[in-house]
Structure formats: C-alpha cells, structure tokens
C-alpha cells in the first residue's frame, strides 16, 4: 500500500484549468489579454503539476475526495506516477500550443477565437481531470467533458465538411462511452463494491479473487470498446474525421489530449482496475495485444495511401496509439514501461508533426503532400523539425520514439511473443515508408508546377518556435529518457 497524502494540492491543476475559461471569456474583447490568460493558466497548471512531482517520486500518492455521492461512489482525485506522466505532457504542451494557437488563428484571421480558446481550456481541464482521476466515475466524467468541449473545436470552421466530421467524431465517442463504458462502470461497481482505483501496485486490481471470471472478461471488453479515444480498430474512424478541425486542435487535442486521454484511460483501466495478474490469468492481455498489433499494421498501411498530410498523420496517430496499448497488454515489466513511456514520447513528436502541418498550411496553403515539392528549402526549420519528429516515429536512435519502442520490443521478447515482435518491426518499415516521401518531396523534389514559391517563406515565429522546441525536446527525451521513466518506475514497482 502506498503512502497517501490527503491534500487539496492535487486539485490545483484542475482548479486553474477550471478558472481559466472564465478569464478567457472575460477578456474576449482584448486579444492579447485573452491569450495571456491562456498562457498564464498553462504556466500555473504546469507549475501545479510539477509541485506534486517530488512527493510522487518519493513513492507517495496524493489524494483528495471532494464529494462522496454514495459509499464507493465519489468524485475522487489521485496523483501517482502514471497521472504525472499524462498531466506533465498535457499541461506542458498546452503552453506551447497557446503560442502556436496565436500564430495560427491570427495568421489565418480565424473567426470565433474566444470560443476556441475557451473550449481549448475546458478540454485541458478535462485532460487534467482524467489524469488525476481516482476512480472510474471521475475518469468517466472528465472523459466526457473532453468529448463535449472538443466538439465545437472540431466543428470550428462551421462548413458542411466540418459539421459532418464533428458529428462523426461526437457520435463515435459519445456512442461508445454510453454503450460500453457506462455498463462497464456499473459492472465494476457491482463486482467490486467500489469504483476507486487500486493504486500502488500493478499486479492487483479492484476485483476480488472470487469475482465471476466471465463477468470480469465482459467488463474488460466493455471498457476497451468504451474507450474509443484510444482509437483501437474498429472504433478509430473518428480520428481521421476530426482532422477537419484547425490544425492546432489536431495538434494538441488529437495528438495529445484527446487521444492520450484515451490510451491513458486504457492504461489506468488495465493496470489499476484489473491489474496484471487478472489480465494474465483470464487471458485478456494477449488478445488485446493482437488487436493493437492489427491496428498498428492496418493503420500504417492506410497511411501509406493518403496524400493529405493531416490524414496521413491521423492514421499514423491511430497506429502509434496502439503501441501504447500493445506495450501495456503484453504485461511484462519492460513492455508496460515502454507503453506508458510512449504516451509521453509520442505526444512530443506527434505534436511537432501536426504543428508543422499547420505551419505549412499557414505559410503555403498546401495540404497535399504531392504538392509540397521543394517547400523544405523555403521552410527549412519547419521541415527540419518535421524530419526529427518523423525519425522519432520511425524509431531511429537517439530520438525519443526509439527509446519507447525499444522497451516495447524488448517486452515483446520477454513475453515470448515473436509474432508481435515481427509486427512491431514491420511497422517500423511501414512508418519509414510513409514518412520518408514527405521529407524527400519537401527537400529534394522540384517545386510543383501549380504552386507559386515566390511568396512562400517560413510561417510566423510564434508557430515555428514551438514546433522547433518540441522537436528538440524529442531528441533530448531520447537522450535522457529518465525524465518520464522515473515516474513510470515509481508507478510500476
């Protein structure tokens, strides 16, 4: 049992993100104050999250229960190693995203910017809530908050295409959570008598040893299909549809907050609700791993066929998310660590890629890869950062993607799953197959005849600086993976 610290401090990041939307709305008439409010909120949130770190690294767990609805059903918050990984990633990248948002929204003179920043902040509020959720109900509530408040962001452009995409997004996420997650939550309560996560060790979960195995398996299946934000096939289609959103939305939310909330929730469910032992005993881990492997390969293959840059990145995200799932479902120590590490490492690399896609759109108004010939020479920093992040996705050392993949691959070895090992290595080849053409088209191909290069130069600094920094961080994380590993090691003792 871990040492708990009862303290309101764990609510700090959640409160700052709850209050931020109010200030954003308040300052709706003054652009700079409004963006400043976003940024300051991000800074405070990040500071709040970091302040929790030392105790967590020392092996303690923060907790606080603001409301108790019924015995075993409450709104409860908890901060352990796994929470810290997601919370740090989301809050840190929110600051970068705010800078980037400024450049993008002002660069394109977008409408309804207040609504945009407002919903962004609330979505991060949801992400904070998910990461610090202490029981299934809290997780569910904040998970839904994210779905609801990202809808206006996805539908931002307000044209037919946007509404179509947003509707699909919403239906998938809401539909799956209502149909599957809710019953799973209920079943959990019925079988365990409580909704509180089992914190402190991975091996055991909430279920008592005499729980009906069939019911446990059904509950597990319901959870997996209820967490469509993790984009496991066949419930992945919302992700490419959500690409109608403005690119910063795609960047932060669909590469970081929304999807990471999904895979984080899957990790939390697998490790803190079920636990490694039960997953192993009831043969739940390996089928999940195979489903994830299928997702990885098929999504990568589909990505090969897409010419739209964001669509290709969307399918790449679907594929990469399943790396997290496959890592955790292999159940061996190295694989589980690798999967959780990938949550962080993928976030930094993927956000760089989406930021770059947005920068390309703002600077050159191009979305299709085949038309991006020679753009790399005009936008060297953007494409240079893209290149670094692409190397991370492919898994070339020493960029961070290599480190998390290394752990997962070793974990697959530990589990003796050679077929999955082959799938993982094969996906590396596929990743190279769909990222490399983007790079060589941009740097080494001549300009597309229909594209006028004379007026193209780098995107505004407020966009290029964040994306360059996240690329550099990706490299640094690869050289110093203990940044996130230390939290994971504490969690996975």
């Amino acid at each position: 049992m871990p040492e708990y610290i009862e303290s309101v401090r764990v609510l700090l990041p959640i409160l700052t993100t709850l209050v931020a939307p109010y200030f954003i709305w308040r300052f709706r008439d003054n652009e700079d104050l409004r963006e400043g409010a976003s940024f300051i909120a991000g800074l405070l949130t990040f500071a709040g999250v970091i302040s929790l770190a030392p105790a967590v690294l020392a092996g303690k767990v923060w907790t606080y229960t603001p409301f108790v609805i019924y015995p075993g059903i409450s709104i409860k918050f908890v901060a352990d190693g796994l929470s810290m990984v997601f919370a740090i990633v989301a809050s840190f990248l929110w600051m970068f995203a705010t800078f980037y948002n400024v450049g993008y929204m002002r660069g394109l003179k977008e409408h309804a910017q207040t609504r945009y920043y407002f919903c962004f902040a609330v979505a991060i509020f949801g992400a904070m809530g998910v990461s610090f959720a202490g029981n299934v109900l809290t997780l569910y509530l904040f998970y839904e908050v994210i779905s609801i408040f990202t809808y206006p962001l996805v539908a931002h452009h307000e044209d037919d295409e946007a509404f179509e995409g947003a509707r699909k997004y919403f239906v998938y996420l809401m539909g799956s959570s209502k149909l599957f997650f809710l019953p799973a939550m209920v079943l959990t309560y019925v079988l365990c008598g409580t909704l509180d996560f089992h914190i402190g060790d991975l091996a055991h979960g909430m279920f008592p040893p005499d729980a009906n195995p069939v019911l446990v398996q059904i509950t597990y299946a319901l959870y997996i299909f209820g967490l469509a934000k993790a984009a496991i096939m066949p419930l992945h289609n919302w992700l490419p549809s959500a690409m109608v959103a403005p690119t910063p939305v795609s960047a932060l939310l669909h590469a970081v907050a929304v999807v990471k909330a999904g895979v984080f929730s899957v990790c939390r469910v697998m490790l803190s609700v079920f636990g490694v032992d039960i997953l192993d005993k009831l043969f739940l881990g390996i089928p999940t791993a195979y489903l994830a492997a299928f997702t990885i390969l098929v999504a990568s293959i589909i990505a090969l066929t897409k010419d739209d840059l964001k669509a290709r990145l969307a399918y790449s995200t679907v594929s990469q998310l399943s790396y997290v799932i496959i890592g955790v479902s292999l159940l061996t120590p190295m694989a589980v660590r690798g999967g959780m590490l990938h949550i962080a490492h993928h976030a930094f690399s993927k956000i760089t890629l989406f930021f770059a896609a947005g920068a390309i759109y703002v600077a050159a108004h191009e979305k299709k890869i085949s038309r991006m010939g020679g753009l790399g020479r005009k936008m060297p920093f953007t494409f240079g950062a893209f290149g670094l992040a692409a190397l991370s996705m492919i898994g070339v050392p020493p960029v961070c993607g290599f480190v998390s993949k290394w752990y997962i691959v070793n974990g697959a070895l530990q589990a003796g799953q050679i077929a999955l090992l082959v799938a993982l290595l094969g996906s590396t080849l596929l990743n190279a197959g769909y990222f490399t053409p983007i790079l060589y088209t941009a740097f080494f191909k001549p300009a597309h005849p229909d594209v006028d290069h004379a007026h193209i130069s780098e995107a505004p600094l407020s966009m290029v600086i964040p994306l360059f920094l996240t690329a550099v961080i990706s490299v640094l994380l690869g050289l110093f993976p203990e940044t996130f590993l230390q939290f994971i090691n504490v969690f996975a003792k």
Partner: protein
Amino acid sequence: MTEAIEPVIQSAACFIHPSIAYLAAALILVLPWKWEYKHWRWLLLVPPIVAIYSVVKLSFAPDAECLASLHYLGQTLNFGRVDKLAIIFAHVFAIQSLIGFIYAFHVKERAQHVAAMVYVAGGFGCVFAGDFLTLFIFWELMSVGSTLLIWLRRDPKATAAGFRYFMFHIFGGLFLLGGLLLRYKALGTFVFTAIDPASAQYYDYLILFGFCVNAAVIPLHAWLPDAYPEATVTGAVFMSAFTTKTAVYVLARGFAGFEVLAVMGVVMTLYGVAYATIENNARRILAYHIVSQVGYMVAGIGIGTAMTVDGACAHAYAHILYKGLLFMGAGCLLFSTGTAKLTELGGLAKRLPWVMICYMVAAVSISGMPLFNGFVSKNITINGAAEAHRTWLALGMEIAAVGTFLSVGIKLPYFAFWSKTSNPIELKPIPVNMYVAMGIAAFLCFFIGVYPEFLYRLLPFEIDYVPYTPWKVLQASLLLGFTGLGFYLCRKVIVPKARLNLDFDYLYRLVGRAFLWLVSKPSAIIDSVWSEVYKTVGLRLMLFMGLATSVFDVKGIDTVIDGAAYSTRFVGTGAARGQTGRLQDYLAAAILIGLAIFAAFWFLKY
C-alpha cells in the same frame, strides 16, 4: 537502474574515437550561421586528419576490449573495441575519408559535407563497436548519411533511387535488429563476437541476413547498381568505400568460416563482372564491380582460413583505394562532360589525359597487375582458396579476375577515353582538388604495390605470403596480357549499347507494387463499408439513445443529431451558459442509464 548517459573513458592513453571528430564537424556545419565557403571548407580536412592520427596511434598500441563506453537504456554500449581486425579497416577508412574530402573540397553545399561526415562517422562507429546495439545505432546512422548523399543530387531519378535505397536498408536493418534482440533473449548478452558456424541459430542467420544486405550479396545486391550511379559525383566516392566494407568487416568479425558465404562470394564475383561487361553507364559498371570485388572478400571470409581472411582484409584495404580512384575518375568524367554513359563518351584521352592516367592506375590495380596494390592483395585470397583445396572456388575467382580486367580495366576506359577519334562534347574544367585527390590515391595504389609490407603489417593474422615471385608475376602478366588480346579481338562485339539491364530490382519493384495495390484496394473498400455502417447503425443508435434520454433535454440531443446551425448559434453565444447546461444534461442522462442498469443487475444478483 539509472538511465542517465554516463560516458566512461577507460583508457589511460586518451582514445579519440574518430566518429566524434566527424560528428562534431557535421554539427558545426549544419548549424545555419552565415559562414563563407572559403573559410569553412578548411574544416573538412580536420576530421580525417584527426582520424588518421587516432588510428595510427591505436595501431601501435595493444589490443583493447573496451576503450570507451556509455550507459544507455540500461545497457552498456561499447564504443571502443580495438584489435587488429578493427584497425586495418579504420586505417583505410581514415585515409580514404581524407582523399574523399579533398575530392569534394570544391563543393559549396554544406549539406553534402554534413551527409558525408555523418556517413563516415557511422562507418568508424561500426568498426569500433564492441556490441550489437552500438553496431546497430551506427549502422542506421550510415543508412541515413548515405541516403542523403543520393538525394542531394536533386535529380528526379536520384530522389526515387534514394527512397528505394533507404527503404531497402531499413528493411535489412530490421533483420539485424530482430536477430540481435532474439540473440539477446537467448544468450543474455549483446557482445559482438565470432559466431561458430556449427552452432549458429536462427537469430544468427537473421543477423547474417542483415549484414548481407549491406554487403550486397546476391540477391540482396540490387540497391547498389540502382542507387550508386544516382549519387552525387563526390558522394559516390565515399559510398564506394564505406557501406560495403563495413559489412565486410562485420562479416569477418562475426561469420568467418560460414560455408554459405564462400559459395555466395564466388557467385558475387562472377555475377558482378557479368553485368559490368554489358552495362553502359560507367558508374553502374563500377557499382556492379563493387559487388564482384566484395565477392572476393566474402568468399575469403567464408572459407575462413587465416590466409583467406587476411586476403579479405588486404583486398578490402586495396579495394577502397582503387575503387575510390575509379569512382573519382568516372566522377571527373561525369562532372566534366555531364554524362557517365559510355555511348556518349569516347575519344577523351587527349582532352582529359590526367584523368585517364589516374583511372588507368586504378584499372590496373583492380586487375592485379604487378607493381600495384591489387596484385599484392587479391591473389592472397585466391592463393588461400587453392591451398584450402577449394579448387572450384579458386577457379571461379580466376575467371572473375579475367572479367574484371576485361570490363573495368579495358572496356570502360577504352570506350570512355578512346574508341572515337574525337569527341566534340563540351568539357567543364575540373577543379584542382579533384586531381590532387586522385593523385594521392594513385600514388598509394602504386606505393603499396611496390612496398606491400606497409599493408601486410596491418593484417590481423600472421602471413607468410610472398607476392613477388617470378612465377606469380609471370602468371599475372600472362593472364592480363591475353585477356587484353581477347578484348582486342572482340572489340566490336563488346561495344556498349544504351540499354537498361534487368536485375533483381525488377522483382523488388514488382513486390512493392503488388503490396501497394493489395493494400489500397481493401482499405478503400473497408473505409466505404465502415462509413455505411456508421451511417445506418451508428446514427440510428444515437437516435435511440437520444430518445431514451429525451426526458431531460430533447432540444439538446436534437442539435447533435441534426448537426444544424442551431448548435453553432447555441455554442457561439454565451458558450459558458450553453455548455454547462449540456453537461448537466449528460450527467443526468448518464446517471439515469447507469442506475437503470445497476438496478437490473442488483435484482439479478439477488
């Protein structure tokens, strides 16, 4: 388990890993500060000189297991395993890198130099790697560097060829990775040592496969003639040396004595010269030749006796020098005339006499003419094969020797420099540094030829081979002389034609196309089917859910289903008000459904 990187330098005699010098120079050049070409170009010569210094110092020091290591990802990476086998390769790598950078001295594009430096750094890293993990990291680094050297030609053919090259090398690298991981699982260690052919496991064969891709063993060789002719003029010089010889080194280290290598090696020697004889593009002829010459080395390693492995190393050493010189010569032709096709060249001897001389020095070296380095190195392997009673292999090698002289020693220069009385093609002047580089290489080819001790001193095993005996000299002269006569008699038959010869890459392309076709059809079908499912089932389901919770807020659900402008208005104005309302609705809806199911189970349970 601390994951921090902790460099550990264990040798008292300060070990400068050559790769550091190259990577540092690359880093300095890649940063986008405004620096004039005439200043930064001198930086190009620094890493090779540092490398030569370091390697020469190491060649006088005793062997070392691990001179430098790093802790990363819970493993200890060994960067400094130094012994005679590593030294001989590092020695020639250092010298060739100096020659290569002198040859590329006139190139003003920094990116090309950065790519070359990364590439060379990878080569040194592989040679000094003491464990498979380190080897893999530098192996991938070499892939990236060399791919850039192809792409930087900025030609549509080069772009496509570079992509194929990169994908194929990643493919090979994955076999290496898979093999080394499975080996780690079985043996618990990453240490890179010799593998006993009698007890090799499937994972050892996976590693062998990965090595063979870089060594261009048939049928994994097609990337070489596909990509090398498309590389930059100066890049090809580097590439001719490093990728394949690093592969030879790792094969010598790990797989000496594997029978399959002995046979495949000889197959390579013959296959390479066969294609070289019928090719038209000068650089493609040389690329096929690399396959052939590497075949000698691979065969020598496969036979596995001390003499044949020594032969392989000596041959690698000499090969780097003369092959580099051949590529430099062909590169000068390409640079000056704009083409490498023999059908368009010819009659250039009097206009580019020094290029011709340097080329001929390399040509006679590769053919094994006495007084040049090929003679003192190639025949060690053939001798060794014969002494090991591998008569058929030795015969194959001798036949390939004839073919070598025929295609690279006579045919290429004849049709490039002679065959026509005059050639009106316009010549771009060749910068001095290219001549200097070729001169140095030519000198070394001759120097080692007349003073073979320089090379023999570096060989890993003791050798008592005497190259200059009357018989050996006569035999070589007879062989070469009469091959020349054969060419003279058939000179009308062997005229090159401007055609493309199919090789295994035809198969690779077929496979690639089939895969893409197979993939895009089903994915399009699945996509459309799934959209249908969503429209029919998904939306209906949502409607049903909406009805079920309509008690709480029909309007709210309706806006979701319709996706109408209503939601925009709803959302646009006073977002705070509208959204929190929605949240409460959903909270309520969720709790209602939850309680309903909960109640159902409660009753069922009891």
